[in-house]
């Protein structure tokens, strides 16, 4: 058995689904579900730890900037 190494990547979706063959209704359904999914995620309250982290980084930066004033040439 000889195997050819020149196999091509199949760009088609498998099982006979044509990538562009979706009807308008399906596209609309997927689009709106995607938006709902995203909205739901985006509206989840942001945990405090992220804001605290950035406040901390900001504060560190200010401290080190004051502390090392004049250290950096130009």
């Amino acid at each position, binding site marked *: 058995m000889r195997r050819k190494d020149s196999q091509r990547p199949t760009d088609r979706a498998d099982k006979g*689904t044509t990538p562009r063959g979706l009807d308008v209704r399906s596209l609309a359904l997927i689009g709106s579900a995607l938006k709902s999914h995203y909205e739901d995620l985006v509206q989840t309250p942001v945990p405090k730890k992220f804001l605290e982290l950035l406040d901390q980084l900001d504060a560190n930066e200010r401290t080190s900037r004051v502390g090392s004033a004049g250290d950096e040439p130009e």
Partner: protein
Amino acid sequence: MSQSSFKDDLVAEIPSLRAFATSLCGSVTLADDLVQDALLKAWTHASKFQPGTSLRAWLFTILRNSYYSQYRRRFREVQDSDGVYARDVAVAGNQESHLDLADFRKAMGHLPPEQREVLMLVGASGLTYEETAAICGVEVGTIKSRLSRARAKLSDLLGLDEKPSS
């Protein structure tokens, strides 16, 4: 000086970063690790951000790189333990005009991350094809074909092709 406004800009992007991270790895808890990591990196490399370009796209690039370089294997092991995709979500509306969101999430979970991320970036986060291509490090054409394959697969999984005979 401008550091504070950079901070505010970062804060404003946290919700979309979390949404993207959650969709990428399929777990809220781990997504937050990823977001935290991306925020730290963004802060450290703030000088590399070019003002006038999309901060969101820049942050997504950072987050995505961490995901593929460090986190992916780890995520696979624990994927869906606290699953977004398994979470029960009450969805209003009938099935004729809306997809059940829980079903949709499950279907999303079956897509390869390369397809999921394109759906999120182009279809939900409102990034352009060009921005998405830059984030993913591929050509615009690749983004477009991943997008159609992702939609076809979703349609398949959700049985959208089978038209109701009414």
